[in-house]
């Protein structure tokens, strides 16, 4: 039962990264691909109706993690106290920027929000990457299931690690590159004209960075977290996951060249899914590895009671069917490239 929930939480996190990932990426390139007010409105309109729903996957995944693995929720969230609070501040800034920007048109209003939107999106991508890096590397858990990491210690992988060290920063940079590409491919698909063209160029450049960084991060991960290699040896079918990532990455290049905007975006989805599932697969059954492996939290040690997990499965499945319905409807009614004329209620009068 706990393995099922391990997979379900992983699926929700992956969906969060795929969905909110493209609007974070769109934010990160906002200032660079859109120059005039009209162009910036296009970028915002390309994520406007969906970004909030995308972010709900974070809350839903968090809630699911909470009731399925309470000890993990407690240990990880209090241990990552400082970066999580900063993520919250960035999410607040970013949400405010998106929602408030278009209320007023002024030389001292929208440039400020554009900047905050871009900066907070950029930093969030790096933070998420660093968080993933922390989980893969392992944290200084003690026997009670708790730890606390300062923002940094000496940037090395010793006993007392900080949130930031050379490895987690590296993963953070990879995450930024990957989400920049993901967001750029989305913006390319959803916007017309020069914004779309500039986004394609950004995606093309990010692609090279991703290839180099993916190779580097993969190589170092095998050294830092021995469990990963061990898992791939035990269950060789798992190799399909990194293969999906590589195929996705190749697909992005191929579809960019063919100018198939939709397929390029979906190839990027495949890359992100492949990378995330590889990491998760490599850690199983650990949910939060310890620097001292004896103290690692595992699916068994962190799980909730059996009855709760069973009953949760019923309503969770019902809720997901509903959510899938809303999202299909929402994305359908929002199909095609954005047209910033006539999308607000004022024009109805």
């Amino acid at each position, binding site marked *: 039962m706990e393995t099922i929930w391990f997979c379900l939480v992983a699926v929700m996190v992956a969906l969060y990264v795929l969905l909110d990932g493209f609007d974070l990426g769109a934010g990160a390139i906002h200032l660079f691909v859109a120059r005039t007010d009209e162009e910036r409105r296009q970028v915002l309109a390309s994520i406007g109706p969906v970004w909030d729903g995308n972010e709900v996957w974070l809350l839903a995944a968090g809630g699911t993690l909470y009731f399925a693995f309470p*000890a993990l929720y407690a240990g990880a969230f209090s241990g990552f106290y400082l970066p999580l609070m900063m993520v919250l501040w960035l999410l607040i800034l970013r949400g405010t920027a998106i929602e408030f920007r278009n209320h007023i048109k002024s030389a001292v209003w929208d440039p400020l929000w554009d900047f905050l939107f871009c900066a907070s999106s950029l930093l969030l991508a790096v933070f998420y990457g660093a968080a993933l890096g922390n989980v893969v590397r392992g944290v200084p858990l003690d026997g009670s299931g708790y*730890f606390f990491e300062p923002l940094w210690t000496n940037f090395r992988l010793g006993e007392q690690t900080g949130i930031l060290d050379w490895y987690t920063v590296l993963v953070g940079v990879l995450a930024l590159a990957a989400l920049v590409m993901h967001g750029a491919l989305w913006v390319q698909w959803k916007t017309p004209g020069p914004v779309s063209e500039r986004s394609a160029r950004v995606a093309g450049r990010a692609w090279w960075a991703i290839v180099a960084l993916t190779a580097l991060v993969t190589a170092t991960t095998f050294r830092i977290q021995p469990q990963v290699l061990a898992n791939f040896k035990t269950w060789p079918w798992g190799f399909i996951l990194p293969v999906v990532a590589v195929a996705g990455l190749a697909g992005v290049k191929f579809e960019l060249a063919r100018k198939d905007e939709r397929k390029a975006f979906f190839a990027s989805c495949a890359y992100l899914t492949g990378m995330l599932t590889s990491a998760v697969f490599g850690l199983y059954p650990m949910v939060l590895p310890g620097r001292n492996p004896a103290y690692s939290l595992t699916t068994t040690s962190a799980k909730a009671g059996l009855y709760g997990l069973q009953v949760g499965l019923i309503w969770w499945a019902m809720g997901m069917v509903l959510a899938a319905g809303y999202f299909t409807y929402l994305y359908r009614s929002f199909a095609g490239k954005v047209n910033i004329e006539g999308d607000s209620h004022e024009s*109805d009068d």
Partner: protein
Amino acid sequence: MEPALEAHRLHFAFTITFHYLFPQLTMGLALLIVYLKTQALRTGDEHYNRSARFWARIFGINFALGVVTGIPMEFQFGTNWAEFSKTAGGVIGQTLAMEGVFSFFLESSFLGLFLYGEKKLGRIGHWWSAVLVFVGSWLSGYFIVATDAWMQNPTGYVIGPHGEIVLSSFWGLLLNRWALWQYAHNMLGAVQTGCFVMAGIGAFYLLTKRDEPYGKTFVRTGVIVGAIAACLQLFPTGDMQGKLIAEYQPATLAAMEGVFRTEEGAPLVILGQPDVQNRKLDNPLQVPRMLSFLTYQKWAAKVKGLDSFPQELWPDRIALLYYSYHVMVGLGTIFIAVMGLAAILLWRGKLYETKWMLWLLMISIPMPYIANTAGWMTAELGRQPWLIYGLMRTAHGVSPQVGAGNTWFTLIGFMGMYTVLAILFLFLVWREIEIGPEPRKTAGPELDSLVAD
């Protein structure tokens, strides 16, 4: 109190108090917007559609702040209250996850369509989007109240082998008796906020003699719904809440009411400052025997005072709890008077010309916010010294490795950020009120021109 515990409590109290300023209006307004949309659909009168659009704009700003200040709430259970999460997460994680899965997906998907998709959806479709946003926000309220109700009166659980609290009955958790009454009481509070804001802004338009047809609609809607909600707030929901507290949290009732000594025929305290040290009230103003009657329907019934309970079971902030409760009840009573009087004037056809009443409605806008905040403070301070009533002490729930220094750091961060958000919110809402409900030719006056004026 330990410095870290103090900081963690203040952290949660501050962020939740600020957050709840927004959802209470969201939930109240959602109902009123559905009413306006229904009127538009029924009568075909464009006036109601324009009214709905005006409120949708204010709703949108308010909703955005509710969302961004709401995300930190779920996280804080893990970051600041890890020991609580570890022990009880298997139970309260259920309701919190259900909120995400059943209401946030619904709300977030249809809010965008509601705010920006009127043309695309058509009349009926747009009405549905308003209804779904309403359903989403009210469902969300239920899951949160059910979570809190479980902490007030835990049900449907067993204690596991390592002391963790394990869910044993899903419906026991979801249909907790406490949750049903607390939800009704809480939602009426939210409806009152919506009504006072709508009626107050309507009164502002009537007093300043602009957009008067809208002003009348807003005042009428706010007053009719508000008068009903104000009465239901007191009876039966407030009354039942009081009885549940008397039954399950008797020490809390004593502290709320300022009853230090057990008494037969206990008086109801209207005014008076509690002196916890000397266990008495200064300059008390009381209605004899009233508390006994209200609680047990007998004039001579015995009401347990704080002296009946060992001091370690007393709520740890008695004065604050006492004041929160009295502010809530006092304001609730005033609301019945204000809304009741306005409703009578409306019925007699005099409300729109009665200036003092319109003034009263306008300056009452902040009052329901204060009452709702005081109500929640009563519930949460009343739960002390327990985090989960009877099961876990607040002092035992904090994150063991997050110290006071780091907690103050993030608390100060939130305070600074929320101050800026509050200013922005007031500025943007004021701007919408200033622009008004009449259709605009352009996107409204621009900041530069406002500043230049």
